[in-house]
């Protein structure tokens, strides 16, 4: 460990701020906000610093920090970033900064909200920089669990129609309530965690590693017989968080119920934890099994892409539309991952980044619209652009990135995934991805027109107004990033590419 521990600063800044907030009286709302936003700003600066300090020419894992915690079982505070880590660290920092700004107007128990949010974010940061599997898992859980409270306390409920063959279940389970959504989300993710935990220990045990350090495990190698069942466990375990079909149903309800900043973080960053886990832990540590299972992973991802897009097209509730679009876009990530090609992996990680920004922006906007219109049914809206032109502009920006318009980050990502899919010889994957992008165009533009265009707004929406004050910060930051990283992809792609090179080496230079 030499030099300033930027990684630790990134991870701990929100945590420290969260603890410090405990001492701040809940009445001093200004202090709470300033402390929170400032701590996220510290993380943002630190993560930019990490990106600058990372030596692209050298590659590999850098900025190591090492501190034994339980040497007897080989658990330690082992931090370090590779090219992927840098990318996702930046994404998290940008998104949480925007998220903290977007929550500025929250009034109900705001201190508690910020504390939980900061703890959650510290967990996310931790996952992206942990080299120690145990630490990785610990941070993973820290990132997932506060979500339950955040949704159950600050969420919103939805009327649910009793339909389908299992309609009799609805009442007993309180389907549609925010507690229901929070519970479902937590339970599904925890079941996934259980699978991860088992897989994790199996890998440590199987490889004969003396510690939980991923680098050591990778070096020793996990026996193929172990890999063959560990990989599916990790894929489904992490995949639940990445919204892998059919374990994605927590996502629409969870996102629809969650408050704005939580949706932003959850769709923007947390789902990436899942995909990152599948790739960084599952694929890199189990290369042989990955080759075996990749066709299935890809096939399921294809379902995700098209199914999610169609699901979004079928919805008329704004939050559900965005939530299903996340399912679809995360499918693109998994599709890229399954190609096992440099293009596909670059695209997958870029898609994590692009989708994080894009969906963060979308949820911020949805929050703004919902907070003013108190309605999410898009077909009852119309003409909102007249009273909220700024929101309309940014919604269009996010939508364009989502449908893969060149010049936006989304295009760079999706395009590379398509390249990877075809390079891997999978016509259907490439076609499905492209068709998914088209369906995205269909529903995004339809929604944009329904909300913002046309006569109106109807008289019942009398409280509409454009974004105000700090809310702009969130929109501008995210929107600008979408464009910058869409026009100048190498800013990020160089990092991702270094990471991809490093990790693909596990596949014997398969390219």
């Amino acid at each position: 460990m030499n030099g300033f521990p930027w990684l630790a600063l990134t991870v701990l800044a929100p945590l420290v701020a969260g603890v410090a907030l405990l001492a701040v009286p809940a009445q001093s709302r200004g202090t709470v906000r300033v402390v929170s936003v400032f701590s996220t700003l510290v993380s943002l600066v630190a993560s930019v610093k990490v990106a600058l300090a990372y030596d692209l020419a050298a590659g590999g894992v850098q900025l190591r920090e090492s501190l034994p915690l339980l040497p007897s079982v080989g658990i330690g505070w082992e931090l370090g970033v590779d090219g992927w880590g840098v990318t996702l660290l930046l994404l998290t920092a940008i998104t949480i900064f925007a998220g903290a700004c977007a929550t500025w107007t929250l009034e109900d128990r705001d201190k508690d909200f910020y504390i939980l949010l900061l703890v959650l974010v510290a967990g996310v940061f931790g996952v992206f920089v942990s080299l120690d599997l145990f630490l990785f898992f610990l941070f993973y859980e820290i990132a997932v669990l506060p979500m339950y409270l955040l949704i159950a306390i600050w969420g919103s409920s939805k009327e649910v129609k009793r339909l389908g063959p299992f309609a009799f279940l609805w009442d007993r389970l309180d389907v549609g309530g925010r507690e229901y959504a929070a519970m479902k989300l937590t339970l599904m993710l925890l079941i996934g965690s259980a699978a991860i935990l088992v897989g994790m220990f199996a890998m440590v045990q199987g490889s004969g590693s003396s510690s939980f350090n991923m680098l050591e495990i990778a070096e020793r190698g996990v026996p193929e017989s172990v890999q063959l069942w560990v990989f599916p466990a990790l894929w489904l375990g992490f995949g639940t968080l990445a919204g892998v079909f059919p374990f994605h149903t927590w996502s629409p309800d969870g996102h629809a119920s969650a408050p704005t900043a939580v949706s932003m973080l959850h769709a923007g960053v947390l789902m990436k934890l899942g995909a990152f886990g599948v790739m960084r832990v599952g694929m890199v540590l189990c290369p042989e099994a990955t080759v075996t299972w990749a066709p299935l992973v890809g096939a399921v991802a294809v379902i995700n892409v098209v199914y999610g897009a169609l699901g979004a097209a079928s919805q008329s509730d704004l939050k559900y539309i965005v939530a299903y679009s996340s399912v679809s876009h995360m499918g693109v990530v998994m599709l890229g991952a399954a190609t096992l090609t440099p293009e596909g992996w670059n695209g997958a990680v870029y898609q994590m980044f692009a989708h994080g920004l894009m969906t963060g922006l979308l949820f911020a906007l949805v929050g703004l619209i919902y907070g003013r219109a108190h309605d999410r049914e898009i077909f009852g809206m119309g003409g909102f652009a007249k009273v909220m032109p700024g929101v309309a502009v940014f919604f269009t920006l996010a939508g364009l990135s989502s449908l893969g318009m060149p010049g936006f980050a989304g295009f760079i990502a999706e395009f590379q995934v398509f390249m990877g899919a075809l390079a891997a010889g999978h016509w259907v994957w490439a076609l499905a991805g492209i068709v998914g992008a088209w369906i995205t165009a269909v529903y995004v533009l339809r929604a944009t027109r329904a909300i913002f265009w046309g006569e109106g707004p109807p008289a019942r929406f009398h409280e509409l107004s454009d974004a105000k004050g700090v809310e702009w910060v969130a929109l501008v930051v995210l929107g600008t990033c979408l464009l910058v990283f869409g026009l100048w992809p190498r800013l990020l792609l160089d990092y991702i590419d270094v990471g991809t090179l490093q990790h693909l080496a596990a596949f014997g230079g398969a390219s």
Partner: protein
Amino acid sequence: MSYAILAIVVPAASFLVLALVWPLRHTGRPAAWLSTAAALVSLACAVLALGEAPAMGAPPELLTWPWLVRGGEVIADVGFRLDGVSAPMLVVVTFVAACVQVYSLGYMAEEPPAALGRYYTWHSLFIVAMGGLVIAPNLLQLVAGWELVGLCSYLLIGFYWRKPSAGKAAVKAVWVTRFADIGLMLGLVLLYVQTGGFSWEAQAATSAVAAFLFLGVMGKSAQVPLHVWLPDAMEGPTPVSALLHAATMVAAGVFLVVRCWPLFEHADTLLLAMSWIGAITALVAAVTATVQTDIKKILAYSTCSQLGYMVAGLGSGEMLGGYFHLTTHAFFKALLFLGAGSVIHAVHSNELGDMGGLGRKTRTTMVLFGIGTFALAGLPGLSGFFSKDLLLEQVAHAGQYGPLAILLFVAGLTPFYMMRAWCLAFLGEPSPKAAHAHESPAVMLAPMAALAVLAVGLGYAGGPFGAMVGEPYTFHLTPVGIIATVVGLSGLGLGYAKYGLGKLQGLEVPALAAVVRAAPVDTFWAQAWSRGLLPFAKAIGWFDRYVVDALVNLTGWVAIVAAERARTIQTGRARDYLYAVALGAVVVAAAGTIGGISS
């Protein structure tokens, strides 16, 4: 080279300023002046760039930056490529754009300032996007520009966003063109997989790449059956229609084929298919145009028809005819649209029925519109004559007689419906609405005049143009050309006799038109959406909510029911718990005792 860069950078700067400095944008007219000035500078630079551009065959001037990497290697660049194909197109784009922007100063004068600023912002963006498409060093940047002009099209069709029909048209345009872009994307990705890059000069590419790319072309250049968005796109302001949906953006598809000619050149089956698709598009659109009563719809279908012409021309296996026709068409069709705009400006209606007798009030417009009509009709000496002649000759030379026959028929139909439009608008008795018509201001007439000059004279530039593109060309009249001219002139004559002089009452619009009026293709797509995709999506949505998610809920329900069974064990009476403890202890102890003693 630096001129070519300036031709893009200046409008880009204008766009950035207008987009970011919203107070300036909201002032309206200053924003318009800024954008227009940028467009004029861009035009000047493009003309200068044309002067210094190397012809095809000579090494192109390149300036690129690495854009995408893979495994440490650069796989795609962005930048500028000035050569014999991009330079002329750049002039076409900037010229028409500059004319349209100047024209809009008059045409859009009554818009609110903020809307006007927005309008010009998009126009600046359009020059950047289209210029980026034209000057692209590789197919990836071309496609990026392609999508961005699509975005401009979406935004400009939806300029009157409060009008529901405009919103629908804008969305429909993107839906249809992006549907076609599925093919384009596949082609692009396939090109990469086969050649490891995005150059259209790569030898390793198969004709499958070209075939996929052509699917995209069919959407963008409005080929049957994907032409349905173009007529609806007329919801946008008329200058927008002139620039995007007549002269440049819709021609991007044709330009793509020209640009990627090395990929298409040897794909024989594809070329034949292109000929037929182009010819059928030309015919269907032309027939449809004869029965329209909306002057912009006539021009839209005419554009569609002429794009079919170009595609068919490219299908002949030689690209000069198609490209030349693209250039000439850009000017005279833009002229026609601006003329139509002038008329609409005068009577505040698109309907031919609201016009009539405008010739007396708007003499200049009548003349300019007439020039456009004659150029489109292929009147000998005007630009359309030369390009159409070359195009038909190439089709004949390729021996594609089926498409040739159709194209020749269309060559007669085109002058007929254009003459109809001209006569109904400018001759005869004025309608009540036309009574108060007035000539448009000079700011609108001047760009039209500039376009008219080129509509007349560009045909004589065929030689240098051919040299530039790398395919030598000298004009010589062939039998096909003579037939086309005769057919064209008779079409003009028939049209004038029927609509100008009121003769030929027997010659009603052909019965075929009745079929076309039903617009079966449009209906087909509408049904595909409302009966196909949307219900399918709804079904998926239902399935997800009420089956997949319900299975998740089922597990929760099972847990609850199981717990309800299990909870009866808990009687809540201390005694029962004690019994459990005692018995447990007895059992454990018994096991231990017996085991301990017996061992």
